[in-house]
């Protein structure tokens, strides 16, 4: 299995290299096919990994009895498919990767989204072309994200965390909004600079951890957490949280996000929202809680507070957006706020909620960005005022899917978006014993109102985009409503949204460790 994990990391990167070596004209033609095949293989591999993990002999995390289990936190690593090699002894850095039930679902999500993006690119690519590089960069991003999710060494985590930066910057800078060259460049630069600052700050936190504990290894750190809630551990926790909060992004560090999402090409937005934001929340769960438990207790109320503000501010900002992609981007701020709140509660419920919301948000926002991209491609703009209303009449299927995705995103019970938010709120209702409960009750109430706001802006979007009098916005001759490739690409997302909504235990069962 460890070979499989390494293959999951290496294959996309190597494919990208091969694509770059091939001659341009040839590679441009085959890139999407190659990308689809390879990312499909990676998807199969990741699912295989999950199935293998679930076999009773290997998997530690099967369902635990109701009465006996103590109130433990997910986050600590129970390594599976482990590879542990010496790499840079002078710096105490090891090439140590492993996965567990927290990371494999995220890896599957990564593989799925990249696969869908490649598939989508078979037919639909940004106007500027250069498909070869686009696909290659997507594959590099895949390697980076999977690597982050499987890194056990903190430095390796940091390394993979950084791998995605330049490819994503290029994706936005080259294939972004073709009408606004300066804007897309600025967005890309803001994105990459803020993120790199965040990760540098995070690195400082890692180094403080190393100074305190003498190791970068998450497995060792998980078993011997850094004690103390003041002084150096606190500084480390703050720095790590700050760095990850930029990526997540948490209010008020979210400012790069709307621009980056709005200007990125469709596949870029999908990966940005679906995967890259998860790196931050995954890091908080994987690093902050198990390694610095006491220091995290100290900062958890602030984390929760900022998350709550993010929920409200992100939702409110959506009301005033006139660009559909920006709107969805801002909605991500709100949703990531729920994840942050769930993490801040430090309770099993909250953390499971955060993990579940991670997956759900990846699926739903991915779908939303695909839809927004489709609408944008058909109208050559993503400005709501220019697109006009009554999409129900012009593009009934896409419009219907948009309604579905909006409903899923606003947390409708029975769809995937609900469980994460619900569990985060439940966690806030009963946070960890060491946290001030009243504070979190307040957060819960405010976040609850945030769900109403979320519903409100999505309904507003539907009202202003999908509904309306078709007489005012007559049908223009669009070639297709829902093309075959779009149907093919989006079906898995829709299906998974429903399946996970009706059967949350498909994931939740495996996040309850003894």
């Amino acid at each position: 299995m460890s070979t499989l994990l390494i293959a999951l990391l290496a294959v996309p990167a190597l494919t990208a290299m091969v694509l770059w070596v091939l001659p341009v004209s040839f590679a441009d033609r085959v890139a999407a096919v190659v990308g689809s095949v390879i990312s499909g293989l990676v998807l199969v591999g990741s699912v295989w990994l999950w199935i293998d993990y679930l076999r009773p002999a290997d998997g530690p995390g099967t369902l635990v009895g109701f009465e006996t289990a103590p109130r433990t936190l997910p986050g600590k690593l129970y390594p599976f498919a482990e590879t542990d090699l010496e790499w840079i002894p002078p710096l105490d850095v090891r090439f140590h990767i492993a996965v567990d039930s927290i990371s494999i679902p995220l890896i599957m999500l990564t593989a799925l989204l990249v696969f869908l993006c490649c598939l989508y690119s078979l037919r639909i690519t940004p106007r500027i072309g250069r498909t070869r590089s686009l696909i290659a960069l997507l594959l590099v991003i895949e390697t980076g994200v999977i690597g982050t999710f499987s890194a056990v060494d903190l430095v390796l985590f940091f390394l993979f965390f950084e791998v995605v930066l330049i490819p994503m910057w290029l994706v936005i800078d080259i294939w972004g909004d073709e009408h606004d060259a300066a804007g897309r460049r600025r967005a890309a630069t803001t994105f990459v600079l803020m993120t790199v600052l965040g990760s540098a700050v995070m690195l400082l936190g890692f180094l403080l951890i190393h100074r305190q504990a003498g190791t970068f290894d998450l497995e060792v750190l998980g078993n011997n957490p850094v004690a103390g809630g003041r002084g150096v551990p606190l500084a480390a926790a703050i720095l790590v949280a700050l760095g990850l909060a930029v990526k997540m992004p948490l209010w008020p560090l979210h400012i790069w996000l709307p621009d980056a999402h709005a200007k990125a090409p469709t596949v870029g937005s999908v990966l940005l929202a679906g995967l890259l934001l998860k790196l931050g929340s995954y890091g908080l769960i994987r690093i902050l809680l198990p390694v610095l438990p006491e220091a995290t207790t100290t900062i958890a109320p602030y984390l929760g507070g900022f998350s709550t503000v993010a929920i409200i501010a992100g939702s409110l900002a959506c009301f005033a957006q006139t660009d559909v992609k920006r709107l969805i981007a801002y909605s991500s701020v709100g949703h990531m706020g729920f994840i942050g709140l769930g993490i801040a509660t430090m309770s099993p419920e909250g953390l499971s909620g955060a993990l579940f919301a991670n997956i759900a948000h990846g699926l739903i926002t991915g779908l939303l960005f695909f839809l927004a991209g489709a609408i944008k491609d058909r109208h050559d703009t993503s400005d709501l005022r220019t697109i006009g209303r009554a999409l129900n009449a012009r593009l009934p299927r896409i419009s219907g899917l948009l309604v579905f995705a909006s409903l899923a995103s606003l947390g409708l019970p029975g769809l995937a978006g609900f469980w994460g938010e619900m569990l985060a709120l439940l966690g806030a209702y009963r946070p960890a014993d060491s946290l001030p409960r009243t504070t979190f009750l307040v957060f819960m109430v405010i976040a609850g109102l945030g769900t109403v706001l979320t519903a409100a802006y999505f309904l507003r979007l539907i009202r202003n985009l999908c509904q309306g009098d078709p007489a005012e916005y007559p049908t223009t001759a669009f070639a297709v409503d829902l093309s075959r490739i779009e149907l093919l690409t989006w079906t898995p997302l829709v299906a998974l949204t429903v399946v996970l909504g009706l059967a949350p235990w498909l994931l939740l069962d495996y996040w309850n460790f003894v």
Partner: protein
Amino acid sequence: MTITWTDWQAIAVPLVLALGAVAALLVDGFWGAGSRQLKHLCVTLVTAGAILFGFAFLVTQRNSVRPGFCRAAVEAPAECSIVFEPLTVGLWAVLLIGGLGVVGLSTYGLLDREIPVGEYHFLLLSALTGATVLAGARDLATIVIALEVVSLPSFAMVALRRDRRGSEAALKAFLVSVLSTAVMLFGISYLYGVTGSLYLQTIATQLPGIDPDLRRVAFAAGLFVIVGFGFKIAAVPFHGWLPDTYAGAPVEVTAFLAVVSKSAGVAGLLVLVTFGVAPSGSELRTVVAILAAVTMTVGNLAALRQGEAVRLLAWSSIGQVGFLLAPLAVGDAQAVVGYLAAYVVVTLGAFGAVAVVQRHRPAGLLTDYRGMIRSEPGLAAALIFFLVVLAGLPPGLAGLFTKFAAFQSVIDADLLWLAVIMAVNVMIGLAVYLRWIAELFRLPAEAPFSVDIETPAVTVISAYTAAAIVVSVLPSTLFTLIT
């Protein structure tokens, strides 16, 4: 004192380099009327041979410790002028790599600009001699003279084209350098007055216990000495000459300044700080830390808006020096040498690529690089890789891990404020290099740069790239230079 075999071993490398220098000069002088290309080749081979001997020596002797030119002291270990030890090996390795790289870089394009080949290589090897002595020196007299041996030939090299720009560049560098030497010597004179010795070892043992009244003078003296090196490595605010000189010198010489001369300065400062004037806990280390913070910030910020490739590299090298000063301020030789090694390799690479482009586009603007990823994919990919290493992001793992080591040493020394400034500078630095990388990727480009690159250039740049890739995949090699 009699000169022993050990002494000869300790100075074997500088000695061979000096002999190589004379040899190169003689070959050039007695060449006669043969082909200039052939003469160039011969001189290059002589030079490279001298340097390669140095490498061979380092490889065979890397684990030995040989103090040279020692004087027995009363109730203390012998005071030595030069010590061959693991730190020296690491620094010499870096310097020799840099020297060899510059020699490689000079294999093409030198003759076109009517640079006298023999003298060029003579000066290069002389400077390298000084640099190696400097890195091993353990007394102030040797340090200051070796530093001059590095400096004066390099100024001559700057002006070697003997044109308007070259002479102006050389004059600026020269004036600043002379002032710095004077300041440093003034500092040394006080250090001598306070401690009564020029040996670093003795100074280090004397300084902590001196009279409080003298401490202030000792402090100022140490400061002056550090400032002298600050001129040499162009720490802010002693950096003014650097961009102008880089812009005015031939590209090969600029690379030499950026690589060998700067490394020599850092090596000298490292020796000085760790062994002598600024023992652990000294306020002088705080001064170095402040210099580091100011230098990296100013260097990176100023690089932000440069439109010329060489000037951008010049300012960014100031920023890089800031990063180098950070671990230096806490006396972490391993991090310094590792960082220096990675910096040397990729700076050589970047200047190599710039040299290729500037031969055909003398203006050297960033816009000349537009769309090169399509028109010259190999060169562009290599250049991007070098820039990414300089920025310290994947895939440039060498840069990433050397920055990481710098962070680690700073954090371990409790200088959180410096670490935070470094973090901010990672961001600014990235912004600097991204502008260039963006140009390389930008399509479509009108008249993108596309030429038949000379074979030596291809070879040399490939070698740099290979080296950069090796140290990126195995960053531990960088940190094991000091075994």
